[in-house]
């Protein structure tokens, strides 16, 4: 049965249905019998279901069925929120025997439609598994339940003088398990590397209910295949992560940031080189946003704007963050760099501002981190999270805009803005197309156009957000047939019945 909310988003849904994305017909929906079984193993507060006898109202299920962008909408009749790994294992075992599809869900902030059902799969939310299991302050190793919210973990380790190795705009809602499942990159990757390096161990419930305990806290462990790596970035298609052991770096003693206004995009690369060389070990982020992204962030109140006179004539902005061990040393380095930049014969920057205190530090970050949210407030976002050479960032944005222009789609009732921003330091561009509504016409204009553009630059169609339900058809632009074949074999070994996050990553 279609709920009213589902019906209103049908156009969007149909756009995806038409590509043939749907849960395999071999899978079953949750029935009242299944529900009775779940109710016998879980606390009442762990079960939400529209089925009798629970009869939860639809608005309790909606938040679990609807993705963050408002673009994908599932039709789960049951959401389970187990509290222990044993409960997870029992649920999964049952679903495997009964061929019920499962969508593991963290904070539901994923941007590729991976965290909501395609059809009526069961949603297994990790929200109730939210305890820190241990922290070793000497080694900096944190072991936590998968459902711990990233911000909560950041706050947990902060007084113990450590930081989480990752940070992203969704930190207030996303969970560490979701971060690992998507191999989230984020704002600190430049400094601390990817989760493939900082995750030391995982506890995973496999699709048959078996608990795989690889929750080690060893920095070094060369004993055969490193199985945990398979789950990092698998987007919940190989199993459910229930706990994570992760290496947290010591907290920097001093941090600072600046936002620089550049007259020309061409200056970004030379600026990156100069900044890398001059700041060396204290450089912790180098983020890029084009003028449109900046203007949208300001328009939607995502951080205090720079003075009019400072943004005049700026084509794009760069945010530089430093973190280091000694304030005086770091400030001196940063000041020398800024002075050099400003006093150069042909300056790479127009001007910029330096944060003077933590509230300004947050405010400057807000301008960059708030872009995602600002775009979603402005309209419906088509998000392309691509890896391409930094030198081509602007070309990619311009080419997309020109292409839409040539199709007559750049108009207020179709595409409002084409925006570029991202993690310049990692060669990761977020190319966003902000439209008045999701339509087939825009989707057709964008794809495969953008994927071909990425392929031309030998880039990746998904730098950090993953494949989810949104990009399964585009996987082949970045992975060859041999690789995709192997991925399918691996999926078959772990999940022969195809119950784990069906329709995601692999078609």
């Amino acid at each position, binding site marked *: 049965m279609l709920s009213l909310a589902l019906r209103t988003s049908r156009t969007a849904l149909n756009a995806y249905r038409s590509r043939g994305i749907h849960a395999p017909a071999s899978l079953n929906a949750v029935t009242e019998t299944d529900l009775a079984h779940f109710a016998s193993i879980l606390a*009442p*507060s762990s079960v939400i279901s529209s089925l009798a006898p629970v009869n939860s109202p639809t608005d309790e299920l909606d938040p679990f069925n609807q993705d963050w962008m408002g673009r994908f909408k599932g039709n789960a009749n049951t959401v389970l929120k187990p509290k222990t790994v044993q409960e997870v294992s029992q649920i999964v075992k049952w679903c495997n025997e009964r061929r019920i599809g499962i969508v593991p869900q963290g904070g539901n902030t994923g941007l590729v439609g991976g965290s909501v059902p395609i059809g009526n799969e069961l949603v297994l939310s990790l929200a109730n598994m939210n305890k820190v299991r241990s922290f070793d302050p000497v080694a900096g190793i944190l072991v936590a339940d998968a459902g711990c919210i990233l911000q909560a973990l950041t706050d947990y380790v902060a007084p113990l003088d450590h930081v989480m190795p990752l940070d992203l705009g969704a930190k207030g809602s996303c969970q560490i398990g979701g971060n690992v499942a998507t191999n989230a990159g984020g704002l600190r990757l430049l400094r601390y590397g990817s989760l493939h390096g900082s995750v030391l161990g995982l506890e995973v419930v496999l699709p048959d209910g078996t608990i795989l305990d690889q929750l080690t806290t060893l920095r070094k462990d060369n004993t055969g295949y490193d199985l945990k790596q398979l789950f990092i970035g698998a987007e919940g298609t190989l199993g459910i992560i229930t706990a994570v052991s992760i290496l947290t770096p010591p907290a920097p003693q001093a941090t600072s940031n600046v936002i*620089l206004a550049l007259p020309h995009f061409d200056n970004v690369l030379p600026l990156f080189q100069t900044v890398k060389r001059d700041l060396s070990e204290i450089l912790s982020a180098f983020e890029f946003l084009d003028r449109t992204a900046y203007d949208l962030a300001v328009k939607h109140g995502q951080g205090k704007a720079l*003075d009019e006179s400072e943004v005049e004539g700026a084509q794009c902005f760069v945010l530089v963050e430093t973190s280091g061990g000694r304030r005086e040393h770091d400030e001196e380095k940063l*000041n020398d760099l800024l*002075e050099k930049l400003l006093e150069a014969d042909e300056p790479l920057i127009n001007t910029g501002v330096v944060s*003077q205190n*933590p*509230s300004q530090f947050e405010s400057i970050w807000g301008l960059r981190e708030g872009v995602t949210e600002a775009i979603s407030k402005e309209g419906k976002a088509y998000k392309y999270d691509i890896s391409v050479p930094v030198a081509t960032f602007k070309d990619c944005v311009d080419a997309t805009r020109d292409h839409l222009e040539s199709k007559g789609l750049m108009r207020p009732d179709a595409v409002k803005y084409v925006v570029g921003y991202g993690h310049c330091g990692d060669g990761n561009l977020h190319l966003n197309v902000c439209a008045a509504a999701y339509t087939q016409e825009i989707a057709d204009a964008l794809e495969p156009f953008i994927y071909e553009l990425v392929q031309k630059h030998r880039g990746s169609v998904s730098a950090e957000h993953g494949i989810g339900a949104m990009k399964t058809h585009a996987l082949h632009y970045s992975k060859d047939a041999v690789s995709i074949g192997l991925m399918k074999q691996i999926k078959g070994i772990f999940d022969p019945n195809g119950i784990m996050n069906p329709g995601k990553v692999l078609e």
Partner: protein
Amino acid sequence: MRPTSARFLNILVPVKRAVDYAVKIRVNSQQTGVDLNVKHSMNPFDEIAVEEAVRIRERIKDEVKSIRAVTIGPSKSLDTLRTALAMGADSAIHVEVPESAPAPEPLGVAKTIRALVEKNKEIDLIILGKQAIDDDAGQTGQMLAGLLGWSQATFASKVDVDTKNNVVTVLREIDGGSEEIKCKLPLVITTDLRLNEPRYASLPNIMKAKKKPVEKLKPEDLGVDLTPMLETIKVAEPPKRVGGGKVESVEELVGKLKDAGFTAV
């Protein structure tokens, strides 16, 4: 007596280097104070004061002749002055006290500022924070106005300067609303949060700030004695909050309430 004819304003902005508001403060093990080995920045209310001085100049242009920042503190307080200069102050005065000296108290600070005003007779408007977030004393502005015999407008949320008539109209935050008062110059204003939102320091201004003059003085040069008059007996953390728990059902909740000694009326 001071002249009452229309004049050019000379503004003095006292600023304090304080433990940053975002830092989670910890009481030291001797219970004599808090751990000071943490990030410091300009007291947020003082930042608002500097911003207001700069905005007054932006509004009435050349009628503001000078904006001077002053701080009383150890050598590191120079950073705070540089921030004020980067935000738009023209010059600064650093009344330096030794690193090991106890933090000056409000009365000592007020007397120091009075001495500065007596030395620089042209100053006719002093804007300072309503309190510093480290000791939360909230006294300096009032004491200063009293010592100088000037008008005072505390907890300002809006300031309007009329140099023709030598009056300043100030909107004050008071319990349950606001109050508008008209004050004659010379005047002491203390700032409240809503007065303005301080600007970022721009790169060119930070560079310029490095070249702006900072006059260094010692308390003795001004004939003031900053020896504390108050004695701190003990500093302790507030009692820790005990976390709540979750219950599965109404029955369990009622049971817990009963256990805790609550009964139905």
